[in-house]
């Protein structure tokens, strides 16, 4: 950060290398296209350069940059009037029909062998993982992306998105549950 303030070009290049790809991925959660996401990220870099002298260091530099990005991407997304997927509400992590009246599994999950897991995380199926992410409502997708794809802590995710820890946990829970269900369908098809 000191180097960035001092106008060290290589410091900026390092930041771009480290964060730009993840930033585009996060921006895509809120805006309708890759091209718009790239624009939002570029605007964010400009805002970072303009704001760096006033950055107080209360959060990490990364959290600060991603927070600027999330705000910009959200307002751009709203302007572009992307139809926001309706949050399904509290419908449960698993299809209710898979439990009996007492709440015990009547249709329990089939065992995933190590080979199945290996397959799910290999090349062609990884593309389907991305597709599964696109099926999530944007709040869930943003939280899952930051937590599980980018490896941010729950505190960092709360700071980036401006949400409470409890809300973060609900979105994470719903998002992960739905992705698991999508994987399960995928496994059953094979």
């Amino acid at each position, binding site marked *: 950060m000191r180097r960035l303030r001092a*106008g060290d*070009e290589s410091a*900026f*290049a390092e930041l*771009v*290398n480290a964060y*730009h*790809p*993840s930033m*585009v*991925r996060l921006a895509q959660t809120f805006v309708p296209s890759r091209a718009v996401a*790239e624009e939002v990220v*570029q605007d964010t*870099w*400009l805002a970072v*350069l*303009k704001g760096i002298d006033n950055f107080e260091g209360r959060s990490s530099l990364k959290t600060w940059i991603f927070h600027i990005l999330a705000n910009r991407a959200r307002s751009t997304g709203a302007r572009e009037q992307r139809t926001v997927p309706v949050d399904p509400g509290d419908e*449960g*992590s*698993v299809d*209710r029909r898979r*439990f009996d009246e*007492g*709440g*015990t*599994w009547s249709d*329990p*999950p*089939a*065992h*995933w062998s190590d080979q199945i*897991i290996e397959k*799910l*995380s290999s090349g062609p199926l*990884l593309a389907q*993982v*991305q597709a599964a*992410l696109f099926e999530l409502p944007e709040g869930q997708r943003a939280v*899952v992306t930051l937590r*599980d*794809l980018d*490896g941010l802590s*729950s505190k960092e995710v709360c700071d980036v998105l401006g949400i409470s820890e409890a809300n973060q*946990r*609900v979105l*994470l*829970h719903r998002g*992960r*549950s739905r*992705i*698991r269900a999508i*994987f*399960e369908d995928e496994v059953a098809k094979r």
Partner: protein
Amino acid sequence: MKLLSLRHDIVCREAVELVTDYLEGKLSRRDTRAFEAHLGACDGCEEYLRQIKATIEILGRVQPEDLAPETRQGLMELYREFRGN
């Protein structure tokens, strides 16, 4: 997903809703014990937790697209323009 007041044993339908709080270490000691006791006796829920953990691991392998050289170049030009040289 708020903590259930567990005055009874957990059933599977409840256990699947506690998984994230459990993994985040946000269950009370009592709820953690009840959750683990249920898993110890329930193959379906044990598998479910395993699948959630596998899901997290698989998601962690998804890399963002590489930064295109022309994008990097464009950003460096933006930087120089901003710094005014």
